[in-house]
């Protein structure tokens, strides 16, 4: 039982990252119909921005001359918040300048997000090189920072990441349900033409959607960087799980995508731990298989079929 509990606790941090990416992907797809394939790279880029803030001027960073603007090294929380703000601006800029002019053509839009994917990867490799860097966690991360529950260790770090993510996504839900901006956002996702006719500034709402998605991705990248360190390919694995989780929500339900993120992390840990023929190192194969099986058995994901088909 304690082993099961331990594995469940271990899946929390990864689950938070998968859930955040899945929510970001779903939000953009739901509002604009564009599959933002650069979501993982945007999160990776934001993590490097956080690294610049957290490190301060450093001879190891090719970007060091620009960090004079940053001044001294910031605390990790401040660095992540700074990265979130910059990422939101980048997200809004991306929607306004890159996506909006070609949003009518889905192939062109997908091509543009892939262009962004390559551009961000090239930028990071040329500015900071390909080596592994360390950002650190905003939460206590020493060996003593844990609770012992039922013989299992629950790390403060994992709990902090999970609670932060739940709080942020809860705030997002409140924003959508209780504010005028949220109402406008829901109206735009439901019927864009109708929203325009009743005076909602659709373009601004879409820009806000992209900005929020980029911000959530940046938060995920910043928080998970304490667990997996910072590398140009750090988001590859997370993106696969994030896309899989978003698929569970039919690409349109942020709530189900969020649940899907934790579900995939749980499955990943449990399959690796309990199924004898599944090596803990090859869980990605099983995640893909689960994704294929889910798509095969239930094409609409976990969404009720009628709702999913109506919204297609």
């Amino acid at each position, binding site marked *: 039982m304690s082993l099961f509990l331990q594995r469940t606790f271990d899946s929390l941090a990864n689950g938070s990252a998968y859930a955040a990416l899945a929510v970001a992907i779903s939000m953009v797809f739901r509002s604009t119909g564009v599959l933002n394939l650069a979501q993982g790279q945007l999160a990776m880029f934001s993590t490097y921005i956080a690294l610049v803030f957290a490190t301060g001027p450093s001879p190891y960073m090719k970007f060091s001359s620009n960090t004079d603007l940053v001044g001294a090294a910031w605390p990790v929380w401040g660095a992540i918040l700074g990265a979130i703000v910059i990422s939101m601006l980048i997200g809004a800029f991306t929607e306004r300048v890159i996506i909006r002019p070609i949003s009518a053509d889905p192939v*062109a*839009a997908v091509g543009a997000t892939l262009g962004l*994917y*390559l551009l961000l990867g090239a*930028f990071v490799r040329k500015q900071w090189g390909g080596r592994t860097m360390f950002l650190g966690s905003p939460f206590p991360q020493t060996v003593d920072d844990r609770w012992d529950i039922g013989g299992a260790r629950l790390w403060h770090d994992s709990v902090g990441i999970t609670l932060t993510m739940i709080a942020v996504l809860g705030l997002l839900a409140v924003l959508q349900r209780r504010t005028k901006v949220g109402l406008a956002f829901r109206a735009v996702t439901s019927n864009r033409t109708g929203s325009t006719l009743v005076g909602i500034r659709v373009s601004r709402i879409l820009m806000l959607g992209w900005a929020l998605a980029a911000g959530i991705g940046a938060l995920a990248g910043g928080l998970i960087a304490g667990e997996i360190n910072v590398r140009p390919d750090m988001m590859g694995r997370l993106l696969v799980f994030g896309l899989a989780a978003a698929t569970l929500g039919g*690409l349109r339900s942020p709530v189900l995508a969020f649940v899907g993120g934790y579900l995939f992390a749980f499955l990943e840990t449990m399959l690796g731990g309990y199924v004898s023929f599944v090596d803990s190192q090859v869980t990605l194969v099983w995640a*893909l298989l689960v994704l294929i099986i889910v798509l095969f058995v239930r094409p609409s994901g976990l969404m009720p079929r009628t709702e999913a088909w109506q919204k297609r």
Partner: protein
Amino acid sequence: MMLDGSKTSPVKRTAWVALALAIVGVSLWVAFTAEPKIVTDLTNATALTLAFAGLVVLTHYLGLLSLGQGALVGVGAYAALHAVNDLGAPVLWMPLAGLLAGTLIGAIVAIPSLRLPKAYLALLTLSMAVAYPIILRQVDGNLPVTLDGAFVAPSWTGIPENDEHIWEFFLVAAYASITIFLVQGLLRGPVGRAFIASRDEPEAARAFGIPVYRLRLYGVALSGGMAGLAGGLMMVPTNFNDYTHFPEELSIKMFALAMAFGGSRLISAIPGALILIFLPVWLLDRNWVVEYGWIGLVKSEGFIYAALLLLTAYLTKGKGFMSLFERRSPKAQVTPANKRVTSVVGAMTDLETQLAHVEGLAARQPDIRSRQDSND
């Protein structure tokens, strides 16, 4: 049904033959005169032409997006190499193992995702592209693996033993030419027309009895098979495989080039394959890859491909630069070559005209109708 309009004019046919001969001539000249390194690169480009042609089938003929073509090439390479090393397959036939593996994986990915909106195929194939190198690193601890075999030219070819790169080039070129010829033939026939019908008007295609889902499935499997064959062929000159050979960026670069240069003909796959292989060589020769900072960024492969993708998206709305050269004038009216169909259609049109005329007369003389009604 053959249409008159689809026949190639003699001038066009001559131009195509001349182009094909020019390609063969240049290839022969390069194979026998260029340095072995360049011939090997050309061999790889020839192999990759097949993978690009597979993308053309997907994007142009089926209107689908695949972001995992590089991973399928990797699957083919892995299968071909292990078919020789573990199963003892002859090296000359090993690319066929790649063909089988690519077809199988393509079909497995396509079966669930084709039942959904088109975005899902892009999503699943991108996941596959990202996951492939990670999975390979985790699953096969023995990588890099070298091929247990060599390609020795038969004596009748007259190719010296130490010039095996020339023989490898001809081998790959033979595989690629035969495949392109067969696939082009398939696409010019009813299958190709059914592909286009399922792309443009899926509902109408269904109404005419075309099994759209099954057809798309075959298309994705065909495209995957071509990519797998390309991977198997890449093992001919390369002789070893590693998990770093087929990163997700390869798939995205292939998609970028297919989107930018892909046209309606499989031959449009050639520029993409050449750029994919020779651009890094060109950048390396100029020492651009070691430059960092902003200048290094502009001179990097990633930036060039990103710019290509964004320009294609903006300037051509994703249709590719080949579309800018296509004729804008409306196509000439084509008449069916089948005379029986023509006569039936003509008779039906005449009948409709006469019916309209009779109805017009009846409308002008309502008393005729009322009399008839009373009799009934």
